[in-house]
């Protein structure tokens, strides 16, 4: 039995004539300790998929199984890192993490919780900023707080919804390494949603493309057989990397082209000639 299982998921929004089917026939199995990346275009329904897995929304049909149990509502076992950080702007960095651990470990004393907060903030190298508010931090720092908050609850699985999407390339690279570092310590199961194929290949064990919505569905999976820890510069010369990368990009491009040709409709222009004004008034 897989750790996380999605069986025949369909998700539609709206009712009656306004129904739009966002996800259609999604099947996915993730094993314990695996790092899976789902790659897709913007607007292909990635966030909907993430919200189904973390329990914020329920599928229209089909079921999400987590450790054999049907997912109903959110759980501390599945930590979420949102695309837009979603930190509470009125709380400091420390307080943001504190709110999370307080809910996750209600039995711990205040002092233990504060130690926990300090530990995780140290882990993402933000100790000097612990009393700052999110507004005073850069995008990369904010996302690190978000990472600390998700991990501090000690989830069994981390779900990342385009966590680095809004960051510049340099910060992005650094944070990728940081997340991988943290992940490799206790090998939690991880699901990464991204629109960057390179990021997927660098970080994940397995990449699954999401065919663009409406009626988005998962494409064939690509296994990444590159040994960890991976090195970014070496990766560029790795034939395995190049092949996988080209295969995925080709696959995504093909779907894109397919869609474009589908969308292209031939418009038949009416056979019109300008009126003969001059003769009309004779």
């Amino acid at each position, binding site marked *: 039995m897989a750790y996380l299982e999605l069986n025949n998921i369909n998700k539609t929004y709206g009712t009656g004539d306004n129904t739009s089917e966002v996800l259609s026939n999604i099947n996915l199995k993730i094993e314990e300790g695996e790092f899976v990346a789902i790659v897709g275009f913007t607007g292909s329904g990635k966030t909907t998929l993430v919200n189904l897995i973390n329990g*914020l929304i329920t599928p229209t049909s089909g079921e999400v199984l987590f450790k054999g149990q049907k997912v109903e509502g959110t*759980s501390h076992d599945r930590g979420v890192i949102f695309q837009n950080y*979603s930190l*509470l702007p009125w*709380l400091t960095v420390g307080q943001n993490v504190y709110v999370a651990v307080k*809910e996750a470990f209600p039995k711990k004393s205040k002092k233990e919780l504060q130690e926990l907060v300090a530990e995780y903030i140290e882990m993402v190298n933000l100790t000097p900023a612990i009393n700052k508010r999110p*507004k005073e931090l850069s995008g990369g720092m904010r996302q690190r707080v978000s990472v600390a908050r998700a991990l501090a*609850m000690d989830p069994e699985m981390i779900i990342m919804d385009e966590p680095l999407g809004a960051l510049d390339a340099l910060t992005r690279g650094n944070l990728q390494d940081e997340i991988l570092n943290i992940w490799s310590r206790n090998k939690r199961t991880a699901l990464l949603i991204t629109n960057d194929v390179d990021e997927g290949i660098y970080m994940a064990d397995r990449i699954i493309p999401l065919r663009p919505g409406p009626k988005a569905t998962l494409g064939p999976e690509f296994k990444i057989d590159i040994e960890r820890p991976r090195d970014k510069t070496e990766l560029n010369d790795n034939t395995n990397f190049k092949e996988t990368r080209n295969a995925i990009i080709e696959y995504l491009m093909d779907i894109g082209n397919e869609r474009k040709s589908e969308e292209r409709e031939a418009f038949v222009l009416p056979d019109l000639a300008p009126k003969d004004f001059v003769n009309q008034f004779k």
Partner: protein
Amino acid sequence: MSQSLTLNKISKFMGLGFISTLKDLFTGKLEKQDYAKFLRKFIVPIVSIFLFIGIWHMGAKALYNIEAEFKIEKALNEQGQAAADALKACIASGDISCQPNTLPSPAQVWDSYKSLLNDHRIISADKAAFKEKTAALNEKRIADGKDPIVYTGRPSFVDQIFRSLKTVFAGFFLAFLIAVPLGIFIGLSPTLKSAFNWFIQIFKPVSPVVWYLLVFMIVKTLLIDSSEDSSFTISFISVGLCSMWATLVNTAMGVSTVDKDYINVAKVLKLGPFQKVFKVVLPSSLPLIFTGLKITLSVAWMVLIAIELLAQSPGLGLFVWEEFQNGANDSNAKIIVAMFVIGIIGFLLDRLMLFIQNTVSFDKTDAI
């Protein structure tokens, strides 16, 4: 340098930015390019104030002439030429007994203001003397278990201002206590929202006078055994009920429109209902709640005058009404003094709310 910075900060914080500009002028720190700003921020308002007073003065003079001519004409028609001439001479001499009663000029209002302050000084002195005189007696009365003798003379204008402020703050506090919790519940629960919606829609537009009558009906019966003066109770409850709607509607709206991202965070972290309200919902709706409270305070101050007048509760409203009924020759000027005092206090109350909002709100730029 640091002192100027603090003054800068404080004046900006309270929305009184012109103070720091003024200070810069006197300390010679004003740069050349700042002069345009200084002109706009300081000179223009002063010029417009003088313009306002000038127009007022001329308007008052015109009205005075119309009234005087009318009076003389009336005397001529009813009593003949001799009476008309006598009246004309009387008006020209400035005798109080025959002055036309119309919009007072700025100078008259200023005189009334000074006479009101003087009156306050006299009454305060009287009060102090009374207290001194009765101190020994009151001590004895308290020791005997009797009620002490209190001053029962008429209140001065300044006393009435404080009484009005007391009423308005009691009313505002009542509105706050009712509207904020109720607004939170309504915002959180769609069921409660549909239960209360008709109630809000119907009672929101009800006039202060009707609120006063309603409160009067209820409080009169509830305090039927009490010999105490219920006018204060009635007026502050009416003020509260009149003014709470803005806060109620804004709070409900703020609470029900919290950013979906924050709600998702609350769900993912599995915050309990208490934590969710205090850590997520309330902080995020604070700017809207404060906008509501600001409107509530200004509405409270506005309806207070009407309600004090009806409730015969001592205060600025009653002052205005009594002066109007009184019809002495400086009554109109006193009413205008009260008008300015009401306006200025209203402005200061608004600044006070802005100050509190800036202190408690997380995002200083959100203040409206």
